[in-house]
């Protein structure tokens, strides 16, 4: 066992997959000699060579498009977006080309597009986004968002092996804040599409993912100690495919649901989850489904503004109390 950070776990996962399969390669901006903006790929160039660790021009559409073309030929490309905020530059390529390829033309496109996501780091409007909903709506893309070091590793490895395109949202706030003992002698593969119960509880279910898992665990602890409430925290881990069985199972158990995400509110994924609960477990609800999300604004820079816009553990506690008393 060795204690590794979320970032190191991700790095290990990439490294292991590159070692395992020579069809795996990486492309992105500044990932080679520089080792990546966050040093995720430090040392990769030396180990795997410039043929497999490819520095590209600032061309997100070309990065994703080239990855798709290579994937058609049997390769397993991993495309890095330097910040996930820039994935919108490849939106056309991802939604029109990549997402449709299997359906319209029977083309396998096993690519991974990954990048540092999310806020709480004073990154301003263009280094803080969590643009999951933009791709959630497009059939044909899988979306994963690890919260723990173990899943950071396990999901990147599963994503590389998946036969479909996967967008891997890694949370930069967690990069060096989350540490976990991971076994050295065990291959970690987190199944895509399976949620994880981050905390067991019986009074209320909080459905969440990515960095919000940690905020919700803090909130659950607070609710336990000051309110005596037993809160279950469900870490979805994968948004597409979504673990409906885990969601509905937890709803049937606790009868009260709070959905928490970092992305903005309107058109956010909480809305979709709410609908699924309505359709699948309406009669099990003892209170309306509620959500805690970011406000509908871009992510501002000033700490006071960012903290106001993004959801915090206190917001979760407050919403949970409303539900518990409903």
């Amino acid at each position, binding site marked *: 066992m060795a204690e590794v950070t979320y970032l190191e776990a991700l790095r290990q996962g990439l490294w292991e997959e590159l070692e395992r399969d020579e069809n795996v*390669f990486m492309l992105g901006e500044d990932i080679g000699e520089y080792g990546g903006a966050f040093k995720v790929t430090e040392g990769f160039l030396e180990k795997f060579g410039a043929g497999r660790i*490819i520095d590209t021009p600032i*061309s*997100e559409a*070309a*990065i994703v498009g080239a990855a798709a073309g290579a994937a058609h030929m049997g390769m397993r*490309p991993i495309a890095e977006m330097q910040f996930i905020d820039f994935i919108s530059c490849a939106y056309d390529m991802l939604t029109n080309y990549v997402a449709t390829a*299997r359906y319209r033309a029977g083309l396998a496109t096993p690519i991974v597009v990954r990048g540092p996501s999310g806020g709480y780091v004073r990154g301003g409007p263009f280094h803080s986004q969590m643009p999951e909903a933009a791709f959630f709506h497009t059939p044909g893309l899988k979306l994963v968002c690890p919260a723990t070091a173990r899943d950071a590793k396990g999901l990147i490895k599963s994503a590389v092996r998946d036969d479909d395109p996967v967008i891997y949202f890694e949370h930069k706030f967690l990069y060096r804040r989350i540490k976990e003992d991971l076994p050295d002698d065990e291959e970690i593969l987190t199944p895509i599409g399976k949620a994880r119960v981050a905390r067991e509880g019986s009074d209320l279910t909080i459905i969440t993912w990515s960095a919000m898992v940690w905020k919700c665990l803090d909130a659950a602890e607070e609710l336990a100690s000051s309110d005596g409430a037993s809160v279950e925290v469900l870490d979805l881990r994968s948004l597409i*495919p979504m673990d409906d069985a885990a969601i509905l199972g937890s709803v049937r158990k606790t009868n009260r649901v709070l959905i928490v995400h970092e992305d903005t509110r309107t058109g956010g994924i909480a809305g979709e989850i709410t609908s699924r609960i309505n359709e699948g477990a309406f009669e099990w609800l003892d209170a309306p489904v509620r959500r805690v999300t970011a406000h509908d604004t871009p992510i501002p820079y000033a700490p006071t503004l960012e903290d106001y816009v993004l959801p915090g553990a206190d917001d979760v506690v407050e919403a949970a109390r409303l539900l518990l008393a409903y």
Partner: protein
Amino acid sequence: MESALTPAAPPADLTQENLLEIYYFLRLTRSLEEQLVNLYRQGKVIGGLYRSLGQEGESVATSYALRPGDILSPLIRNLGSMLVKGAQPVEVLRQYMAKTSSPTAGREMNIHFNDLDKGFLGQISHLGDMVPVMAGIALTFKMRVERRVGMVYVGDGAMSTGAFHEGVNFAAVQKLPLVVVVENNGYAFSTPVHKQTRVASLADKGRSYGIASYTVDGNDVLAVYGLARQLIEAARSGEGTQMLEVVTYRRKGHAEHDDQRYQSEEELALWEGNDPIDRYVSRIGDAGWATPDDLERIDSRIEREISEAVGTAESDPLPEGESAIGGVFA
């Protein structure tokens, strides 16, 4: 990096059999499209119909210059390129008629389909997007040290897109074995080239990326073939990305429903007199490489093949509605 219209020279590596085969594909392309027009007017072709009248020469010639194992990605007016690579008329008919037996089982339209084993990748409607994708395919060839080449078609309109820029630049930087065929056919839908760009020659754009770029008379089949062959082999031998601008003309509207009000009768007449198939027939006839009998025999074969294909395709059913579900993921 010359950009003059080079005179047609008979390519040394073509046999008489090759020359007749090129004729077959030229005529097949045109006849198949004419058949599609009929089907379209009969209401059997369901969506739009996009003609390549006047552009068959460069499509067939550039594709014919590739070798087995090479992969191309066509545009909507490159039916000829696909037929050369092995696409079957019946597949095209089924696609246009949205049959369950079509290569995409009714999910995609017209010539939006692919067969990577035969060497063609299906396009999407977003112009320029195929350039990065083909760069990725060429990247694979390079990484695997395979002596294969990718060819991607763009038009005067597609060159204005960001995807084109990113893809060509990426391919240029990576020195990928990719040939970019620029079809300068005068119009992107109704927009003439002078409203698309300020450059005098579209090949100048290629030069700005630092890649070898040439311009050729796109209606001179053998000239196109000869230059394409050179560029393909240059790419194959590690000289990096190449660009070939073929100057041609779109004699029909953007689609069958386009009244072409923006194209003058004089202009259309001028280019009708510069028809690539007519020029090719004269050329091989004058040179004594083919007899009228040879060509007539090929014409009859094409007529028969198309007639059979239409019969087969027409009788096929449309897909069941529920077959739309599934196949989004592996």
